[in-house]
């Protein structure tokens, strides 16, 4: 069973890593979690992003969720925001595509073009 004591160990390890690596937020991933997004599978997409970012230990990536933005027919919708770069908006995402976005776009810097809705 996990206890709060485990957290202490995690904290110490994290503090050490923070000194070695830059942990400032480099990329923000925002999953649209409105009613239509959820009905279209946004919850699984969110879970995939959280899992992938955690297991790959991407400490400079933050995954968050927001309400609808009026693109119901293209849900689930995901924004990838990197400072100094255009805002990439993906549509009709599922878990498989979410994994590709993590590997190809977030890790390697190549947006997954076939699922892009807009770049602004």
């Amino acid at each position, binding site marked *: *069973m*996990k206890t*709060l004591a*485990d*957290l*202490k160990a*995690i*904290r110490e*390890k*994290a*503090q050490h890593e*923070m000194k070695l690596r830059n942990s400032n937020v480099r990329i923000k991933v925002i*999953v649209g*979690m*409105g*009613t239509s997004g*959820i*009905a279209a599978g946004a*919850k*699984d997409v*969110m*879970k995939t992003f*959280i*899992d992938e*970012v*955690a*297991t*790959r*230990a*991407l*400490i400079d990536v*933050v*995954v*968050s*969720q927001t*309400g*609808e933005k*009026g693109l*119901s027919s293209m849900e689930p919708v995901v924004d990838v925001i990197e400072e100094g770069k255009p805002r990439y908006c993906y549509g009709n995402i599922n878990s498989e595509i979410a994994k590709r976005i993590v590997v190809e776009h977030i890790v390697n810097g190549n947006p997954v073009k076939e699922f892009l809705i807009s770049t602004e």
Partner: protein
Amino acid sequence: MQDLSLHLTDIIENSARANCDLISIVIGIDETQNKLSFEIIDNGVGMDEETLSSAQNPFYTSKFERQKKIGLGIPLFKENAERCNGSFLMESSIGKGTRLYAEFEHNHIDRMPLGSIEDTFLSSIIGHSDINFFIKLFHISQNKKEKVFILDTREIKSELGDIPITWPDVVIYLKDTLNEGIKKIELEEF
């Protein structure tokens, strides 16, 4: 919505949009009463009487910028509860917050499965890292024995100090804690 965890995600999102800093969620099975209940309380902006009653109407949305003036989140959840001999209640006051309570007959044939509520909690905690979550899950069995699981992100955050709750190892910790807790109290029925 295919399961209750999706409704829960939706309701939590409403609370998050109400600018709250604490969401308290109590979910439990009471076999002695044949009940499955959900209580979600936030300390957000709250709603006046009119908005509160409108929120249960599918042809209402609080999102003014929207072209299609519908909002199905709450009406769908309400309908599902009532279809299962359950009940649905929403209370709110301006500046104090909102409380939503939904109850289902646990073994009702139309009751949707609970689904993966552990994913709902993890997504909400990570996706709204600035909001605190108090989660209490309980299961009262036929012989009146109660099993309880509690997760309070305020405790976790104070233990973490300057490390964000979104830190990869913390996410894995939260995931394991939630999975273990839900398994321990046997909230999953499948």
